[in-house]
């Protein structure tokens, strides 16, 4: 069986990942690109005697090194040399998508175009002549509908055929006499660098140098061509050249499109009409907040019966272990430690999955892109770029990928600012704490309490951004450019797949870091030998009592102090630790918390605020260190979070205490 490698490239939101999933099914592997934290997805598919490896490259609008995603995508194509590059093109937006085509084609690699979302273009009344488009571009074009798996076989056959065809020639855009003369001079200079010339197409290098691409200039540095290249570049205005070259690319696209596409022109599509409401100057943000409220209402309430079932199962298991296992320490280890601790966390799986399902639905429908648009104005006014909203939304799931997602933000200060405020976005790991405490102390308004916490997190993030922008990170905010994808009715399969992809991470955490965390808490609560489990004389009690003075003003006792310490490893462990320290699983933890005279409703509210804002978890700190390249910023994030959490928990707790009868 022959093997070939296909790289999938394309703009964001063109259905690239859907096509990747449809092609590779369950034969996928997710990791990171070497040296960077951009996600790398690979999968395999067999077709007509070929074993095909499919690599899903990050979505990019161009191949100029504006962001890490773009560098990863083009470096893979140039340095790993896949047998074929398949560019996924959104058939409803050919102009923008073909801009990337002109750049990929310049790399001189075998290429196939998957004209995706063809059904939507047809539903709009557009007709695209695939044969003529292929003829003009000199690239095979295949009609696909990723959501329904249409055109996949034809696409694979075209890719196999293209991989076997040789030689390939570079597809070039004519940039006009002046630019072409400079390209020729640069290419000539670059040809003196044998190593560079062997690895990269010289014309492409020259084009990128004219566009002021620092990443390419770095490749030239240290080589024999540098002096001549710098001399040529010093004689031109690279901004002007970049603009002229972009114009020429769009000119070429404009020349082709009328000959291959008949677009249905209407006054205003239903999608445009809907945008008038959801992006309305006055109603846009309230509608977004209302939808978020609905999301958390469903997350809290619909999960309740499922939680009850899991609670019952965990309770039965704990009882079974306690009653049938000897010696007593082993029963305690299994019952109080593993089942009590991990069970207290696992019980929140339904909430996590429902939240991710709703977020996937909103994202797949195209609404979240509108949410980013409407949030741009307030974010910009407060010193954050509009693009920061996407990492902030991703932060609702997990801050680790959210911090990685800041790589799409061009300005270094904008990016650092977004990284520093991201931990205030309430990740799903904090949800179990809210659900436990809100459900216990505020059963009638639990959904609204959780919503309040999410809004508080956003408010603190924005206020912190304003503070940082006016003090430690001064400067102008980058302008926001983002395309609005058309609205779609999400398919159940796609949304469920997204839900599983994000939610399964929580299950893996429960079986690894959370398990280890609760076992450490169990050991600290059980030793030294002979002390009562979880008592003040245990190691956990000693640590808790040592820290109690720091958290006593917030209404927390030593047990909460210990739980917060272990929440530093992963926020879910706060609940697991409380389950262990109160000697219960989640089933009776609510009752135990209510019965504890040391924890009032106001203190519970303060605890939720503290958990929302205090130090990021270990994984998030590691990623902050990696993305900022500095322990200084990671340390700053921890210290700032702790101070803000303490102050706000104090204010909220004591304010609530005025209405709820004291903290």
């Amino acid at each position, binding site marked *: 069986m022959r093997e070939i490698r296909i790289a999938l490239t394309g703009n964001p939101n063109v259905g690239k990942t859907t096509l990747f999933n449809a092609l590779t099914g369950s034969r996928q592997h997710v990791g990171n690109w070497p040296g960077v934290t951009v996600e790398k997805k690979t999968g395999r598919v067999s077709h007509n005697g070929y074993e095909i490896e499919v690599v899903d490259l990050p979505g990019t609008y161009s191949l100029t090194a504006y962001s890490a995603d773009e560098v990863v995508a083009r470096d893979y194509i140039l340095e790993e040399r896949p047998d074929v590059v398949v560019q996924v093109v959104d058939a409803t937006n050919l102009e923008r998508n073909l801009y990337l085509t002109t750049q990929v084609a310049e790399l001189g690699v075998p290429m196939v175009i998957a004209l995706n979302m063809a059904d939507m273009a047809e539903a709009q009344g557009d007709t695209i002549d695939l044969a003529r488009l292929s003829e003009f571009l000199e690239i095979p074009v295949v009609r696909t509908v990723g959501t329904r798996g249409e055109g996949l076989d034809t696409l694979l056959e075209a890719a196999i055929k293209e991989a076997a065809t040789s030689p390939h020639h570079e597809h070039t855009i004519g940039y006009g006499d002046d630019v072409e003369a400079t390209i020729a001079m640069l290419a000539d200079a670059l040809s003196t660098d044998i190593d560079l010339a062997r690895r990269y197409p010289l014309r492409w290098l020259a084009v990128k140098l004219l566009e002021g691409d620092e990443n390419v200039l770095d490749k030239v540095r240290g080589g024999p061509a540098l002096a001549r290249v710098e001399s040529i570049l010093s004689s031109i205005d690279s901004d002007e050249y970049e603009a002229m070259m972009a114009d020429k690319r769009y000119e070429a696209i404009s020349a082709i499109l009328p000959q291959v596409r008949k677009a249905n022109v209407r006054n205003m599509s239903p999608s445009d009409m809907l945008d*008038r409401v959801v992006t309305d100057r006055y109603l846009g943000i309230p*509608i977004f907040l209302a939808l978020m409220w609905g999301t958390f209402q469903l997350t809290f309430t619909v999960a*309740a*019966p499922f939680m009850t079932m899991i609670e019952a199962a965990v309770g039965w298991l704990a009882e079974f272990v306690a009653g049938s296992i000897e010696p007593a320490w082993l029963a305690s280890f299994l019952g109080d430690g593993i089942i009590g601790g991990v069970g207290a966390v696992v019980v929140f799986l339904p909430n996590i999955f429902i939240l991710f399902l709703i977020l996937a639905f909103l994202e797949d429908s195209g609404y979240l892109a509108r949410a980013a648009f409407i949030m741009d104005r307030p974010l910009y006014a407060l010193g954050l770029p509009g693009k920061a909203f996407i990492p902030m939304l991703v932060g609702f799931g997990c801050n680790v990928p959210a911090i990685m997602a800041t790589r799409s933000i061009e300005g270094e200060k904008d990016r650092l600012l977004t990284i520093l405020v991201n931990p205030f976005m309430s990740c799903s790991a904090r949800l179990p704490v809210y659900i436990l405490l809100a459900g216990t102390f505020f059963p009638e308004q639990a959904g609204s309490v959780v919503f309040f916490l999410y809004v508080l997190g956003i408010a603190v993030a924005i206020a912190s951004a304003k503070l940082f922008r006016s003090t430690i990170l001064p400067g102008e905010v980058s302008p926001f450019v983002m395309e609005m994808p058309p609205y779609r009715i999400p398919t159940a399969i796609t949304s469920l797949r997204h839900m599983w992809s994000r939610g399964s991470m929580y299950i893996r955490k429960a079986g690894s870091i959370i398990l280890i965390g609760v076992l450490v808490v169990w050991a600290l609560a059980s030793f030294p030998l002979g002390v009562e489990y979880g008592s003040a004389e245990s190691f956990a009690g000693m640590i808790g009592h040592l820290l109690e003075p720091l958290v006593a003003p917030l209404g927390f006792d030593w047990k909460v102090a210990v739980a917060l310490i272990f929440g530093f490893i992963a926020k879910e462990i706060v609940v697991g630790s409380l389950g262990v320290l109160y000697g219960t699983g989640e089933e009776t933890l609510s009752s135990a918390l209510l019965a504890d005279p040391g924890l009032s409703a106001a203190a519970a509210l303060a605890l939720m605020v503290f958990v929302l804002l205090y130090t990021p978890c270990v994984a998030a700190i590691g990623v902050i260190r990696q993305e900022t390249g500095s322990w200084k910023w990671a340390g700053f994030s921890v210290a700032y979070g702790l101070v803000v959490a303490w102050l706000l928990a104090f204010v909220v707790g004591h304010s609530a205490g005025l209405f709820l009868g004291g903290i």
Partner: protein
Amino acid sequence: MSDTAKLVYGAALGALYLVAGALHILVAVVGPIPGLDALPLTGDPLAGFVMLVVGAVFAAGARNLARDAGEDAIFVSVGVLLSVGFGLVELLALSAAGLDAYLLGGGAGWSVAGLVSPLLYLAVFGAAGYLAWGRKFLRGLSAA
């Protein structure tokens, strides 16, 4: 349905949602109001906020239709979708709470009377609009 009918419908639903939302928030702030005991107001200020938002969308639609802004009652159509959507959220939430309380023995404080929630019964009027023309709007959206 004519634009005039949509205008009247939007204005009526807008007023109902705005009043219900305002009362909800009022009850949340000052506690039970004498004379309004018969109304099932939960006192959840955020549910009140959501009703105000839906009401504002309907009201904006009615105003635009009155001014003949030439936008095919888009705000009223979105109001209908929001009304039905939040009605479904409320229905799912109440059903799940009922299932949890009666079949599984979990939860607390659930009663049949709780089903008479403003977000739920106002959604019945929203559903009427959905059946009259909202479905067509949604189909047009998914085909776009």
